[in-house]
Each structure stands twice: as C-alpha cells, then as structure tokens.
C-alpha cells in the first residue's frame, strides 16, 4: 500500500537514516544472538524433557530486542507468551524465563515493570492502556507497551484497547509482530485489510509499518512512538513485519501448513541477525573475529542461566495457595490443611 510505506533503515530500500549509536547497535546485536542461542537451547531442553512446551521467537529477534531497548525501565511492559526476549531486555533474568518454561509461574523478578506473559490472545492490550493512564495520572515519565501478534488483531480486546487508547489519548504503544502465522492460520485469514497498521486510522491513533527484521528501524520507530506518547500525542500501533522461522511452539509441526520454500526465503539475507551483523561489519563496528566471541559468550551465558534455573529448589504446595489473595481466606486454609493431611 502506497499510503502505508514500510519504515526501513538498513539495506537498499532504506527510508530513514540510522540514528542508533554504534555501541547500542552492538548491544542490540549481542542480545539478539543471546535470544537466538537461548531459543535453540530451550528447544533442545524441551526435546530432552527438561522444559515443557516452549514458544521460540526464532526470526523475530530484531523486533523483540530492539523494541525493548527503546524503552525506559520505568515503562510498563505487557507481553504475550513469545516475548521473553523483550522481557529480558526490560530486566527479567533468563533464569526466570526458563522457570516459566519449566511450568513454574512467575516469569518476573524484582521490580521489573512487566505483567506476567499473557496467554489468552490480546486480553492484555486493555491492561497496557490502563497502565499507561496510571503512569500519566501519577505524573510519571513512563509509557506502556503491549506485545502481540497478527492473530491478536482479530480479537475483540484489540479493538476495545485501541479504541480506549484513542479516546483517552493514553501514552501506550501497541507493538504487533506480524510474523505471518497464527499457528497454522496465515495473516490473510485474520483480516481483509491490506495492512494491519492501517487499522490505527479507524481509532484515530498513529499507525506505522516497520521492517520488523531491521533492528535499527524497529528501535527508531518505537523510540519515536514513545516520545510522541510522552509528549501527549497519544498511542501508536506499530506493525512490525517479521517472520516466525520456527514452530508456534514445540508442540507444533509447521510442515503441515506452510511450504519449506517460504521459510527458506526468510533465512540468510533476510534473517534479522544476519542483517544487523552484516551492517555492523560493513560499518566496522563488529569484526568477523568478534562474531565468534559474541556467540561463545551467549552460549556460556545461556548455559549458566539453565544451570541456575535447574538448581532452584522444587516448588512447594503452599505456594499454590498463598498467592491467590493477599490473605488466605478460611476456605483456602482448610484446603491447604486438607492437602497436607491435617483437616477435612
């Protein structure tokens, strides 16, 4: 669509100059490699039965990592289940992501301003609107950002959240990672709209399409949207065009519904890590020798995180009861006792 151009920084079709400082670009690259390394490790752990069903973000590293680097730690993050990369950049340790994949709740740690990953699709979008409004009401220099996918734009809560955000001019970013597939359903089955970004127009909010595999472009677009939100200019819907290289989760077999050629076409030069690596190399920021070091560092780091997670003490039954309410009501006290063999 002519009216919805794709924002790009890297490559021949670049539409905007790079404003990302070299050191930050390198950091983004390192985190992207870390995320890829982690996802590959997690897939292996799942095959070994050491973690449960896991949704890798293979292919979406640029959007995951660069978007989160454009935030302040004061910002609220409302992630979906595939956003451990963004959560990590926001301050959640990878150990906690692994614990989450091990079936243990609490993908959060310390004071990180993030909600637990939302499982039901797009139901967390209204939360981001409320969090953004709360930040503004309390005079904070903070916004909220919700992460979701192309399938999420079909949900009623997508509509309600964007509509509320528009009406209340909430300082919120809706980051839609259009990775082409909602499990087996292609984006053409989610909407008859030519783009997802254009839906913003109907809500009277900003909409932008960005090359989601161009880390520098993603960073810049999110940064601009954040500045606009803080300046009182309201919310932005960002459609980041990317591709899910892997399965939806470890329980999914994508060969049942999509062609191998399609997947191959998104590898190599279109791979977000290859793209940023090439760019950094051309700019002399990253030497070929460093490349191997980045991977090795990531490997060691991920292995450490897995060890830390596996060394955690086993869960206790009481933890299931004690966090339902601030104070355990009598019926839960009774049920806990019942479990422990005490009372009825």
């Amino acid at each position, binding site marked *: 669509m002519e009216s919805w151009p794709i924002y790009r920084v890297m490559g021949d079709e670049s539409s905007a100059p790079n404003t990302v400082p070299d050191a930050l670009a390198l950091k983004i690259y390192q985190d992207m490699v870390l995320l890829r390394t982690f996802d590959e490790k997690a897939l292996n752990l799942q095959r070994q039965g050491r973690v449960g069903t896991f949704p890798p973000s293979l292919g979406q590293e640029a959007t995951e990592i660069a978007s989160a680097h454009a935030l302040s730690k004061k910002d*609220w993050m*409302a992630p979906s289940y595939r956003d451990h990369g963004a959560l990590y950049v926001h301050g959640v340790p990878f150990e906690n992501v692994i614990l989450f994949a091990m079936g243990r*709740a*609490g993908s*959060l740690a310390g004071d990180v301003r993030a*909600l*637990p990953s*939302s*499982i*039901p699709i797009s*139901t*967390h*979008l*209204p*939360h*981001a*609107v*409320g*969090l*953004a*409004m*709360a*930040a503004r*009401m*309390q005079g904070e220099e903070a916004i*909220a950002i919700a992460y979701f996918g192309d399938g999420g734009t079909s949900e*009623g*809560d997508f509509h*309600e*959240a964007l*509509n*509320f955000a528009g*009406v*209340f001019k909430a300082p919120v970013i809706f980051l839609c990672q259009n990775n082409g597939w909602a499990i087996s359903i292609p984006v053409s089955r989610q909407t008859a709209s030519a783009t997802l970004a254009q839906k913003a127009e109907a809500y009277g909010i900003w909409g932008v399409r960005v090359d989601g595999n161009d880390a520098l472009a993603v960073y810049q677009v999110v940064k601009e949207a954040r500045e606009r939100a803080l300046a009182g200019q309201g919310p932005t819907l960002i459609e980041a065009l990317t591709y899910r290289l892997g399965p939806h989760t470890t329980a999914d077999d994508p060969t049942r519904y999509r062609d191998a050629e399609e997947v191959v076409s998104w590898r190599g030069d279109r791979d977000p890590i290859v793209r940023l690596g090439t760019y950094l190399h051309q700019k002399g920021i990253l030497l070929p020798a460093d490349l191997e070091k980045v991977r090795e560092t990531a490997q060691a780091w991920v292995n450490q995180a897995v060890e830390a997670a596996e060394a955690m003490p086993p869960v206790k039954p009481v*933890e*299931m009861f*004690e*966090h*339902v*309410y*601030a104070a355990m*009501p*009598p*019926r839960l006290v009774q049920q806990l006792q019942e479990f422990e063999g005490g009372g*009825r």
Partner: protein
Amino acid sequence: MAEQNMVQALNTALHEIFAQDSRVLLMGEDVGKNGGVFRVSEGLYDKFGGERVMDTPLAESGIIGTAIGLAVGGMRPIAEVQFMGFLYPGLDQLFSHAGRLRARSLGQVTVPLTLRMPYGGGIRAPEQHADSAEAYLTHTPGLKVVVPSTPYDAKGLLYAAIEDPDPVIFLEPIRCYRLGRMEVPEGRYTVPIGKARVAREGTDLTLIAWGAMVNLAEKVADEFQSAGVSIEILDLRTLAPLDKEAIGHSVAKTGRAVILHEAPRTGGMAGEITALIMETAFWHLKAPVARVTGFDVPYPAYAWEDFYMPSAARVSRVITETLKD
C-alpha cells in the same frame, strides 16, 4: 446521622472516598455527567472532574481490562458495568486476569480493583437487565464477591471493597436501591468482607439469603412469626469467600435450613451452601436442607417475571415443608 436509601448511601460513600484518596477513580458508561443510570455517582463528576470520573466507550471488556491496568499501575479504580446482564464480554478479563494475576506473578502483580454492578430482577426491566450471575464469579478463584442488602452495609462494604488489596465484585441489588431508608453514619466505616449478618435471630429454622431476597425473607419470617414460628435470617453479604462459620453456627442452632436465591437453581450458590451445611452442621439437622430459587430458564421477559422470582408463597411452602420433619 441521616436516613438514607441505598443509592444515597453509596453516593455518600463515593463522595467521601474520592475526597480522601486521590488514587480512587470511577469509570464506566454514563457514570460521569449523567451520574449513573441509577444516580449512584450523582455529583461526582462535577466535584472531582472527568479525569477521575470517566465516561468510557461502551465496552465491558475494555472497561474491566483498562481498570485492571490502572489497578496494577497504582490507582484504585472502581469500574462499573451498567447491568450484570452486560457483564459477559468482560468475564474473560475477570477469569483470565483479575482473578489470577496475583497467583501467576507469585504475589508481585496485584489488582486492587472494585467492580460495581446493579444486578437482579423484580423491577420490570427490559430483557437481559435482570440477571443474577453471581455463581460464575464465586466459582472463580481470586475474586471476592459482596452483595449488600441494606444502605448501612452498602456503604461499609464499599469502603471495604475499595480498601481491599484484591479484586472485589460489588453487586448492587437493583430492587434494594430505593427500597427503604435507615440511619447511615457519616464518614468512614467498613463492613468486613467474608462476614455474614444475622438479620433476625430465630430458633426454628435458618433462612439464608442475600441481596433483594433478604427483604423477601423478612416478609416471610414476619408471617411465620405471627404463627409462632421463629425464623433466623442470615444475610450472607459476602458470597466469596462464604462465611462458613456463620452458616454452620446458625444451622447447628436451628437444625433446619432453607436457602433462597433469584439465580437459576442448577449450579447456583444454594448447592455450595448446602454442601457447607453438610460439612458443618449435618448432625444437627432435623430436616433436609431445602432451596427456593429462580428456575433453570433464561431470566424471562417481565410479563413472566413474577412466575420466575421466588415469591413469599413459594418460600412459605418450602419452609412449611421443612418444618414438618
């Protein structure tokens, strides 16, 4: 102390709470300039402004979902759904998030949200304006559900709900809004969540009710009183968590129990309360526990409303039956 009906008591409570705590917000359809369709938020918009008394788009999931975000983010939102029959698009937000964010985050993310809604029948309202859907909510872990039946309890429970660190569903029986006046103290006081009220002491049978059914229970108890039968009325006030102790205590004393609710019978609260009586007072029972409820039909258009709603005659019949044994 002023004599107030329930609408006035709730309105006074809101004015007081808004003046005391700047984190408190009210949001919903027609709650601002219009003061709410039942006038519960009358004057609030003029006094505290549209930033804190927010007229929202017409979308229940959006209202509740946004309120969850506001609550997590440090505010104390009171969300209003205009009628309980319109709550259903917002149930996902209650089931999937309000009730489980604390558990999912192991206590790090909490939702101090109050969700108010008028509920219940008997006022000749249009279709789908009269549902009693409390059982969907009491079945959901992580939520608290309260139902005042008097102006005094309405104000005290509203204070308690807003001060509670967890999500509280605050059901307002439409039929009780302007049913009668009573003395309601000025200023803050709370009615504890989780505690039933003995609305009338008695010795022969415990009649358990909440919301508008408490008033019906009182009428029926009056009739039996003149016939020499002493009925104890337990107004539950909180449906989650249930006051098991009060239920057990009363039924152990009287040996007979009848449970009264407007909601459909199957899966309704009466079943759960009966089970609690089995656990707490079975050996004191002189007769089977009985229930008088709405029927297992969709709440009908109001031409049939009187057939659907528990009536004094139906309640009396069941009580008489229970007293036989």
